[in-house]
């Protein structure tokens, strides 16, 4: 306990002594953790809406303009007998146009300028999740696509999976970037700690000669890194929060519509704590590496 108190007291004094270098190290960590925080914010919200869309997976059967009511009846019969459909709703050409005008108000004039109604009639089909899991949904989709009067079939799950894969790729690249930035931040912290060690080399030599334990010799430097990391991560969270609030003020409504009525949320307390702990870990790692010898 006394060693801990000693480490933090001297770490604080050390940071204060080399203010400019400390600010550089804190900013390096803040940059790395801002990227991480921003990535997690976007990723968590997109993941949330994808999850919701996955749960309510639908496919849409679009009819040709010349499709007859008998052909529509055949399609409905096939769907009802499949056993994997949880519900279906017919959307006429007129209803599709009204829906477009309502959901994309700013583009409503575009639709008015077109000759006639360009939107096809469709059947929106909601699948039962369990049967779909074994591929029954896809079998049904393939069968419906071949029926007369059907122009196209769009299966949500296919593009949802594509979006999911895209998100995974972006997340992978982002985490790679975060790792690089974290390594750079650790090196910066290590350099700052080395500067501090250079300034205190007489003190360290005396500590070594009187038989002080590693907790006393290295402790202040590890604590310096930890404090720098913690401060950098806190700054990063503030930056991400300001970005989130600004984004919500400017595009909150559009984002909520795009996210299917789900307002984008800020990072959870658990994630925020993990980011701060991560920053502290990177910082103390830099301090530990620098004071290893």
């Amino acid at each position, binding site marked *: 306990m006394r060693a801990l108190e000693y480490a933090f007291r001297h770490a604080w004094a050390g940071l204060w002594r080399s203010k400019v270098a400390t600010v550089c190290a804190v900013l390096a960590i803040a940059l790395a953790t801002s990227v991480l925080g921003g990535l997690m914010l976007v990723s968590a919200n997109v993941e949330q809406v994808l999850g919701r869309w996955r749960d309510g997976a639908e496919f849409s059967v679009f009819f040709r303009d010349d499709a007859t009511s008998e052909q529509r009846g055949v399609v409905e019969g096939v769907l009802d007998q499949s056993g994997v459909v949880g519900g279906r709703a017919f959307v006429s050409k007129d209803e599709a146009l009204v829906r477009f005008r309502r959901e994309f108000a700013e583009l409503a004039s575009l639709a008015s300028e077109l000759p006639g109604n360009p939107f096809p009639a469709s059947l929106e089909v909601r699948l039962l999740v369990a049967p779909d899991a074994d591929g029954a949904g896809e079998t049904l989709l393939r069968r419906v696509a071949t029926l007369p009067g059907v122009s196209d079939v769009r299966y949500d799950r296919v593009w949802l999976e594509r979006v999911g894969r895209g998100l995974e790729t972006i997340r992978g690249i982002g985490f790679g970037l975060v790792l690089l930035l974290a390594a750079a931040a650790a090196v910066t912290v290590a350099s700052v700690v080395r500067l501090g060690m250079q300034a205190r080399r007489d*003190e360290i030599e005396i500590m070594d000669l009187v038989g002080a334990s590693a907790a006393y010799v290295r402790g202040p430097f590890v604590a310096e890194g930890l404090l720098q990391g913690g401060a950098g991560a806190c700054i990063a969270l503030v930056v991400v929060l300001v970005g989130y609030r600004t984004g919500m003020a400017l595009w909150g409504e559009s984002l909520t519509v795009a996210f299917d009525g789900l307002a984008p949320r800020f990072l959870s307390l658990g994630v925020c704590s993990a980011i701060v702990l991560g920053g502290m870990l990177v910082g103390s790692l830099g301090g530990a590496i620098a004071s290893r010898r």
Partner: protein
Amino acid sequence: MIEARNLSKSYDREVYALRDMSLTVDKGEFVFLTGPSGAGKSTFLRLLLVKERASDGEISVNGHNLSTLSRSEVQEYRRGVGFIFQDFKLIPTRTVFENVAFVSEVLGVPPAQQQRRAFQVLKWVGLQHRMHAYPRELSGGEQQRIAIARALMNDPPLVIADEPTGNLDPDLSLEIMNLLREVNAGGTTVLVATHDRELIRLVGRRSVTLDHGRIVEMS
């Protein structure tokens, strides 16, 4: 107390800083280690502080074989050795009192005990009235007395001094030596490396002369 047998230290095959040195220093003894620059005095002290390890032979202090001590054993061993250097090695950003108390602080001694002992040793070297001064405000002799006070903080059974009077004039040198004699009178073994033969003559204790890493004279 100190037992060196056929001790050698070389930095490469041809150059020996110490060669086949055998020396015994009894508990409570005051011994000078002398010789010209490069004779091996500082090397022997570095081996005693386990800053370096012997290339050959054996050196033990109070029954501890210094060649085989682990890292944690070295820490433990050093807590029983006081050291004094020619350049004092005081921390310029700390006051006299803090410089002395620092030794106990980094060994985890409770603050009240640190302060009591620091005041005691400062009083012993006669500098309790300068306890709030910084090293730069002190004379060379005062700085060395502070270094002696710091070396005594742990009440070590062995005190090692490497040219402790190298930066001081003859009067101050004698004053420092008298202080070390008093330390010795309390039962502490004292080993002083110096090239000042006049000082050795004035203090009048056993001296071991080294040259080119070998003992050439004992008196």
